[in-house]
C-alpha cells in the first residue's frame, strides 16, 4: 500500500515552514497515508506542531541525544531503517533536505527527484533545471521507493487544523558513525522576519554601493515589516552576509510582495524570485532586465525613491 514519509525540518524547537510546504507537495500524490518523522533530542513540541498539520496521518517522534544537531551522516541510516514501510520519502529542498535526502536515497539504493515543483501523479514530477530556464518532467521507476525533495517556493504551507493526528514514539535505529561532529552555527543575526518564509521581501543589489548604502534597504524593510535580501553581486561585494543572497545559488523565495532595488536582474537572481506574487523593481537603468519581469517599475535614483516610498507607506 502506498505510504508517504516526510522528514521534518526544525530549529530551536519549532517546525520549519518548509516542512508544511513539503506536506502540501505530498498531498498532490493522491496517497492518503502521510507520516511525518521528527528526529530531535526532545521531540514533543515539534511533534505536536507537526501533528496539527492538515493532511498528516501520523507523526513519528524519534528522540536521541545525537539529534541535538542533525547531520546527514547520522540521519540517513535512520531514514533507511524506516524506508521499508513507505513507498515515498520526501524532504524539503532547503539546505537541510539537499544535504540529507541524497545520502538517504543512496543508502536505499534509488535515485532522487530534486526540487519537485509540480506533482503529476504518484511517480511523475516536474522540476526546474538549468537555473529554471527549462522544466523537465521526470518519471521515477515503478516498484521502488521514490525519494524526492519538494521545492518550497512552489507550495504554500499546509494549514494547521483543530484535530491533531496521533504521535507515535519510536526508538532510534542506527548509531553515531562518530566521524562527523557539529561545531557551531553562526547566523547573521537581524531581528526581521525570516527571508525564506517572509510575505514581503526587500532586496538590494550592487547599486547600494556599500554596506552603509544598505541602510536604506534595512530602514524601508523595517517600515514594511519585510525581510531583507540581496543579489549575489551585493553579497560578493561584501555589503551584506551571504545568507541574504536570493537566487539560484542562494535562497529561492516566493513572497507575496518583492522589491528588487538596484538589482539589474541577472538570470541567476530571477530564478530565485520567479514565484513571487508581485515584483516591484527600482533601478536607474530603464533597460535593466529586471523590468522585463517586474509587475511595477520605477526608473530613477533609488536613494531618492526608496526614502520617499518609506514616507508614503
Amino acid at each position, binding site marked *: 500500500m502506498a505510504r508517504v514519509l516526510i522528514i521534518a525540518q526544525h530549529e530551536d524547537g519549532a517546525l520549519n515552514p518548509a516542512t508544511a510546504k513539503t506536506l502540501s507537495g505530498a498531498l498532490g500524490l493522491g496517497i492518503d497515508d502521510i507520516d511525518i518523522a521528527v528526529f530531535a533530542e526532545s521531540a514533543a513540541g515539534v511533534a505536536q506542531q507537526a501533528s496539527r498539520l492538515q493532511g498528516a496521518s501520523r507523526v513519528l517522534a524519534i528522540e536521541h541525544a545525537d539529534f541535538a544537531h542533525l547531520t546527514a551522516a547520522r540521519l540517513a541510516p535512520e531514514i533507511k531503517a524506516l524506508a521499508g514501510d513507505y513507498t515515498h520519502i520526501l524532504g524539503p529542498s532547503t539546505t537541510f533536505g539537499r544535504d540529507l535526502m541524497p545520502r538517504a536515497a543512496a543508502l536505499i539504493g534509488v535515485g532522487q527527484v530534486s526540487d519537485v515543483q509540480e506533482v503529476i501523479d504518484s511517480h511523475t514530477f516536474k522540476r526546474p*533545471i538549468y537555473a529554471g530556464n527549462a522544466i523537465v518532467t521526470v518519471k521515477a521507476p515503478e516498484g521502488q521507493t521514490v525519494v524526492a525533495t519538494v521545492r518550497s517556493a512552489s507550495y504554500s504551507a499546509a494549514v494547521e487544523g483543530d484535530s491533531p493526528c496521533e504521535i507515535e514514539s519510536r526508538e532510534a535505529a542506527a548509531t553515531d558513525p562518530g566521524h562527523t561532529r557539529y561545531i557551531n552555527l553562526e547566523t547573521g543575526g537581524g531581528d526581521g522576519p525570516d527571508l525564506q518564509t517572509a510575505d514581503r521581501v526587500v532586496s538590494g543589489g550592487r547599486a547600494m554601493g556599500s554596506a552603509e548604502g544598505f541602510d536604506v534597504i534595512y530602514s524601508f524593510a523595517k517600515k514594511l515589516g519585510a525581510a531583507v535580501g540581496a543579489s549575489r553581486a551585493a553579497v560578493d561585494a561584501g555589503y551584506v552576509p551571504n545568507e541574504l543572497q536570493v537566487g539560484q545559488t542562494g535562497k529561492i523565495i516566493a513572497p507575496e510582495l518583492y522589491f528588487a532595488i538596484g538589482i539589474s536582474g541577472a538570470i541567476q537572481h530571477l530564478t530565485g524570485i520567479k514565484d513571487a506574487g508581485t515584483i516591484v523593481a527600482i533601478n536607474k537603468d530603464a533597460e535593466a532586465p529586471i523590468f522585463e519581469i517586474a509587475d*511595477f517599475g520605477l526608473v530613477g535614483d533609488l536613494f531618492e525613491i526608496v526614502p520617499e516610498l518609506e514616507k508614503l507607506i
Partner: protein
Amino acid sequence: MKILVPIKRVVDYNVRVKVKSDGSGVETEGVKMSINPFDEIALEEALRIKEAGNAEEVIVCSIGNKDCQQQLRTGLAMGADRAIHVVTDGSVQPLAAARVLLKLIEKEGPEIVFLGKQAIDDDNSQTGQMLAALWDRPQATFASKVELSDGKATVTREVDAGLETLEVDLPAVLTSDLRLNEPRFVKLPDIMKAKRKPLDEIALDELDVEAAARLELTAYEPPPKRSGGRILESARELVDELKNKGLL
C-alpha cells in the same frame, strides 16, 4: 594524500539555455561547454591544499563521451597532476555517477573527494552526498571554508540559517559552494604542459558498476513567462497600485 576531483562538462554558465521546440531536450548544438563552475571551485581548492603542502597529488576525473577530455585537459592546465576519463556515451545520473566514483576511490585511495555542490545543468545537487553514503564516509557539503589538520577537515558550510561548521574525519567527501575561492585563470604555457600530463581512459563497462534504475526524463518545456508589467511615474503612483492590489 591524494585528492580526487570529479568534474562535469556542462553548458557554459553564460549561455542562455533554450528548450528544443519539440520538447526533447535543451539546445546544446554549437553551444559553449565548460567545466561545471562549482567543480572548478572544488579543483581550485584541491590545488591550494596541495600548494600548501597538505596533499601530494590532485587527480581530476570525468564520466562521459570523448568531448569531456577537453574539460579534463583544462583541469590539468589549472594544475591537476593527472586525469581519469571514464568513457561512456550514455548519460549518467547521480546515483550511477556515485557508483562509478566509488570504483575510482577503490583504485586510487584518496583522502578527499572534492566535488561541486551541484551541476548547473541538471541542478540535482546529489552526487557528493550519494558518494559519501556508498563510501560510508563523512560529507561536508556547500563548503565556503576548509581547514585541514591531523586527518580531519573543519568545514564551514553555507546553510539557509547562516554558516554551519562541521568537523569531519578523513577520508571524506566535500562539496564546494560559490564563495569557497575564485578559481585561477589558465595560462597558455600551462595549456601546453597539460598536453603532456597523463590522461587515462577506462571504459565504463570495465568498472563493473551495479546498474541503477533510471529516472526517465520524458519532456522538456520552457518555464512559464512572467509578463513584464508597467513602468510607473512616481513613488506615489506605486503606493496607490500596491494599495489597490491589497498589498499595502
